[in-house]
């Protein structure tokens, strides 16, 4: 292909014909236009007349130019001009196809695979050996060059992985490359470390072509809990135009069914790479959030799982009798309150009230005895998964709780009295803490030197004591013991919760220990030190598309490995758990920065150029044709044939030819009519309220899709109808949502509507308030409906009888819910003389299809889907809600079947009679 600027020619040698143009010019110039022969009796009078001027023997220059242009247009057209030609030359030799295979390439993975397939097809045609390599999943050893067809069959098996390529692995891999090969790199559009060195290494082996998708990358940073609200940050690598994204908070409803808890809109202003959203979630709901995701973005970067950081545990504090008013620093609860308040929701009060609040943790500070019924309630609560944290104290030490036998709410038996070390009346020094043993939830925590214990309660030696001890003093006496009780646990600190017995409550270690016991949760990500020594089990893993999966049999991960918060093959992104604590490892961390991949100018980047290859041949031929037509007209004009006899006919023929050549001059109305009549089209009336119109449009779209999936009715995309201007007679069915302040149709529109109703159209009126005309109290929308319907030719109505055709035109239905359930449905009243034939389940209601169906269940909202087929508006709760939506769809299908087939199903009752008459 020969290119000239942005235009290439497929058969450039034809352009040599342009050389002939000057010759043609001379020839055409020399030849005057051919004369017309006319029979004319008046010639007798003409004899002897001579022309006054003779210079028009030659063709005028502008006509010549016109012809030259036309011929030049033809020559150039047949030379096959192509705008922005694809100048890729089929290469030779081995081809390496590189896929980034990262989370960012998941956003348009099918397109990438298609592109790769195109490349492989070309390579297969050229017989080039191909290797396909995903940078996140590098092959061992030599490049796996194989025939392109083999790779093509493997393409569907390739999947992106939810992390970025590992620079170290890349560096090792690129050293092993050898031989000459070209590279086709399907980049995910993000810069990553090791990309430029890899590019340099690949260029050393051959040419590199890059495919960069234009699909923008959006990512979501982990949510931050900030002053009662959840702060969400969306980022993008490049400054772009103003965009808004929908962010959904996923979580479980109170019944444990996953659902969308909340949603918000993040708006990128133009030129910004970061956008923020503050979601105000009630604490109850916030604790149920499992993650956030950018709606419609299919990549792990657009998903952020939440862990304990977003949760606020509810901690109930119960202290023993407080008779020492005013001595706040001595209060057994003071230090607990101080330690817990920042990170947990602390509640105090009467025991019964506290249990009603369903706390996560109950802390008993120096409480020896509880009333029997309270103790039973508490034990039941622990067995259901609660954490009971007890602190010792003078009262517990002096009581006989768990003295002779182990109390259910105590992890160990206690010796009477406790012990005092390092006090004024004792011999020993205050004891330090022994390092936490492995297996202890506190394992790995650093113990400050200044933490000493002066007094404690002592555990009675027991076979289970060692197993239940999770922290002990330097001399081996247990400091913290724990036992499992049902699904919950009981933990006893053998010291008091205030600073009387030890300095532990004064130290930071105390907070960390509470943290490890999942009593408190921290808004910051746990640090490496905090994670040291823990083992984490993956609960949920994200794939590159951001979909959660179970972790399966994945081995536990050491906290230290997790602490880097760097997703990779060893630590795939997901939700990890250790005991009751949960840590989310997201693809995008709080400080992850996205940088766009920029490529050196010498690298050919495909996919980004807006200019696609565009053949110009047709346009040039059209131009040449138009010029030739103009030439014909001009020649006719010059030679006088435009004014002679039959000239009108000739001009008419030419104009007709032009009209045939350009049939696009159709009016916009025709486009509307064509769309409406191309197939079955569901339509809704425009109410003037943009949101209601949008819901109606989305609802009909959802219904159309369901109809297409389940029935042989395959409607075209729904249309909005303006009653005043559009022709509604083209539609079989109109959905008319009623708003309270909807304008009344004009007289002309009423005439159209009445025609529509009389000639077999059907309107579904929806007041969208689940409440149509209940006795005397009419809703505003209902009142408006009455006003609108006053001008319509509507027969008497009745609530839908149980044997109406609508209840069985496709599905068997008795309820017609939409987003609401239970509102009545009104249809044309059955004739009073309708009777039920013997042995027939239905009355004989053969004739008359109800021209209107009235209700208020807001069906469109139940049907509404977005462009991706996701439901837009919640219906009901949980499984019952899904069922209600399903029934709503069934109602829609029944309705459209009723519209399209009329009383066909009702006529079915005659089948036995017909068969009998046919002698069957």
């Amino acid at each position: 292909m020969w290119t000239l600027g942005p235009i290439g020619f497929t058969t450039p040698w034809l352009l040599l014909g342009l050389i002939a143009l000057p010759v043609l010019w001379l020839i055409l110039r020399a030849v005057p236009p051919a004369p017309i022969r006319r029979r004319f009796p008046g010639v007798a009078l003409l004899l002897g007349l001579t022309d006054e001027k003779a210079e028009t023997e030659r063709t005028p220059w502008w006509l010549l130019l016109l012809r030259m242009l036309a011929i030049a247009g033809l020559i150039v057209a047949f030379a096959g001009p192509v705008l922005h030609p694809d100048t890729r030359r089929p290469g030779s030799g081995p081809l390496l196809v590189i896929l980034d295979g990262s989370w960012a390439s998941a956003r348009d993975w099918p397109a990438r695979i298609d592109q790769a397939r195109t490349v492989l097809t070309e390579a297969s045609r050229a017989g080039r050996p191909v290797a396909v390599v995903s940078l996140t999943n590098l092959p061992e050893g030599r490049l796996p060059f194989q025939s392109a067809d083999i790779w093509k069959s493997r393409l569907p098996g390739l999947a992106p992985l939810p992390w970025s390529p590992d620079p170290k692995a890349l560096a090792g891999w690129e050293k092993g490359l050898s031989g000459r090969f070209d590279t086709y790199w399907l980049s995910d559009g993000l810069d990553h470390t090791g990309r430029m060195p890899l590019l340099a290494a690949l260029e050393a082996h051959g040419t590199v072509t890059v495919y960069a998708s234009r699909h923008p990358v959006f990512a979501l940073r982990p949510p931050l809990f900030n002053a009662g609200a959840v702060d969400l940050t969306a980022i993008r690598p490049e400054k772009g135009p103003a965009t808004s994204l929908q962010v959904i908070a996923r979580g479980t409803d109170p019944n444990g069914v996953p659902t969308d808890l909340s949603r918000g809109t993040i708006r990128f202003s133009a030129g910004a790479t970061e956008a923020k959203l503050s979601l105000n979630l009630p604490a109850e709901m916030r604790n149920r959030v499992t993650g956030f995701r950018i709606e419609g973005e299919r990549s792990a970067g657009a998903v952020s799982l939440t862990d304990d950081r977003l949760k606020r545990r509810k901690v109930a504090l119960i202290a023993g009798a407080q008779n020492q008013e005013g001595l706040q620093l001595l209060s057994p609860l003071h230090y607990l309150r101080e330690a817990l308040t920042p990170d947990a929701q602390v509640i105090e009060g009467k025991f019964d009230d506290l249990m009603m609040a369903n706390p996560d943790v109950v802390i008993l500070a120096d409480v020896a005895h509880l009333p029997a019924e309270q103790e039973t309630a508490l034990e039941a609560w622990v067995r259901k998964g609660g954490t009971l944290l007890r602190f010792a104290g003078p009262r517990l030490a002096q009581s006989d709780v768990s003295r002779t036998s182990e109390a259910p709410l105590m992890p160990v038996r206690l010796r009477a009295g406790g012990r005092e070390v390092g006090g004024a009346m004792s011999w020993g020094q205050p004891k330090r803490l022994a390092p936490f043993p492995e297996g202890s939830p506190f394992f790995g925590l650093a113990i400050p030197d200044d933490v000493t214990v002066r007094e404690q309660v002592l555990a009675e030696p027991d076979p289970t004591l060692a197993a239940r001890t999770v922290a002990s003093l330097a001399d081996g006496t247990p400091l913290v013991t724990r036992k499992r009780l049902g699904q919950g646990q009981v933990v006893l600190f053998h010291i008091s919760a205030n600073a009387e017995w030890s300095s532990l409550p004064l130290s930071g270690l105390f907070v960390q220990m509470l943290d490890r016991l999942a009593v408190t949760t921290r808004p910051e990500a746990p640090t490496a030190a905090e994670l040291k020594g823990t083992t984490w089990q993956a609960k949920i893993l994200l794939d590159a598309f951001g979909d959660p999966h179970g972790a399966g049999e994945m081995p536990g991960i050491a906290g230290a490995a997790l602490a880097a918060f760097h997703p990779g093959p060893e630590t795939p992104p997901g939700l990890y758990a250790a005991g009751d604590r949960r840590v989310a490892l997201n693809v995008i961390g709080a400080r992850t920065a996205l940088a766009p991949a920029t490529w050196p100018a010498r690298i050919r980047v495909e996919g980004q150029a807006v200019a696609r290859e565009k053949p110009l041949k047709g346009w040039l031929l059209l131009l040449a044709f138009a010029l030739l037509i103009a030439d014909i007209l001009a020649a006719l004009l010059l030679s006088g044939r435009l004014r002679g006899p039959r000239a009108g006919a000739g001009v008419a023929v030419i104009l007709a030819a032009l009209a045939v050549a350009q049939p696009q001059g159709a009016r916009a109305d025709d486009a509307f009519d064509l769309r409406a009549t191309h197939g079955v089209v569901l339509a809704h009336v425009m109410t003037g309220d943009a949101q209601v119109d949008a819901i109606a449009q989305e609802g009909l779209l959802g219904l159309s899709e369901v109809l297409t999936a389940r029935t042989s009715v395959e409607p075209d995309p729904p249309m909005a109808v303006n009653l005043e201007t559009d022709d509604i007679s083209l539609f079989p069915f109109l959905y008319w949502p009623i708003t309270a302040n909807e304008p009344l149709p004009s007289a002309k529109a009423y005439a159209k509507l009445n025609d529509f109703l009389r000639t077999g159209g059907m309107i579904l009126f929806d007041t969208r308030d689940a409440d149509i005309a209940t006795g005397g109290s009419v809703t505003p929308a209902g009142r408006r409906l009455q006003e609108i319907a006053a001008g319509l030719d509507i027969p008497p109505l009745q609530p839908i009888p149980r044997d109406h055709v609508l209840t069985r035109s496709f599905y068997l239905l008795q309820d017609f819910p939409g987003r609401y359930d239970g509102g009545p449905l009104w249809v044309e009243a059955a004739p009073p003389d309708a009777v039920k034939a013997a042995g027939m389940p239905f009355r004989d209601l053969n004739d008359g299809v109800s021209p209107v169906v009235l209700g208020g269940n807001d069906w469109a909202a139940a049907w509404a889907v977005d462009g991706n087929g996701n439901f837009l508006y919640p219906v009901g709760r949980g499984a019952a809600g899904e069922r209600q939506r399903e029934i709503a769809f069934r109602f829609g299908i029944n309705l459209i079947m009723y519209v399209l087939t009329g009383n066909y199903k009702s006529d079915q009752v005659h089948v036995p009679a017909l068969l009998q008459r046919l002698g069957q």
Partner: protein
Amino acid sequence: MSEPATAPHLRSRAEALAAPLPPLLAEAERLARAVMLGAHGRRRAGMGDEFWQYRPAHAGDDARAIDWRRSARSDAHFVREKEWQAAQTVALWVDPGRSMAFSGDPGRPTKADRARLLALALTVLLIRGGERVGLADGRVRPRPGLSQADRLAEALAADTPDAPDYAAPATTLLPPHGRAVFLSDFLGDPAGIEAAVLRAAGQGTRGVLLQILDPQEEAFPFDGRTIFESMSGALRHETLRAGDLRTRYLQRLAERKALLNDLARAAGWQVFCHHTDSPAASALLWLYQALERRR
């Protein structure tokens, strides 16, 4: 003629030839009916069939002339006079030249068609009025009677394959003191026309010149390089800009009309210019009145 003269062929040609006759005659009669029908008396006593008046008999009247029935009702004798009815002889000449075969538009009749139609319609009218009508070129001698219309129609429809482009009026059978009607476009040599008219005037024949023109011949709507040919192709005129010729052509046409007018005035004839796009009835009316006026 190279075609075989088999009987069926001959017959089909004969039928094709005969086909125009009845419609032409029918149309001519229809046209004639529209103009006038009725008594064609001379408004004076004379030879005739129609009663004119009773007058008192005076000396010299033949006794047979006395109307006894009228005289018996009074004392005097009355003579019954008849209206003088003298049959005129009208000679028609329809230009057989090829130029008459021209029509500027397929929707318009040719000049020849129009001329034949007018001639035949006039014939019908005149014959109904009791006149004798014939062709000036002698093919049909003047005779009264309605069958004369048939004979004229046949003669007019006959082909004249070797006719010249422009024909001069024939004067073979001009009735002295009769009437002559020349239907032509008068685009040919004016000398022939002049000679014919003067000769007719010389023998006391008066008449009318009906010039039949196509609208294109009046308007000359041509432009560009054009070769104009006469209908047979014998005359040619080539021009590079037909549009330039228009004014001069129209001037010449006006001169030709003026010439005809002068000629007619000198001979006591009347001239009328009829265009084929105007209704034939108007021309027929004029023709009839022109013949009626100065009888």
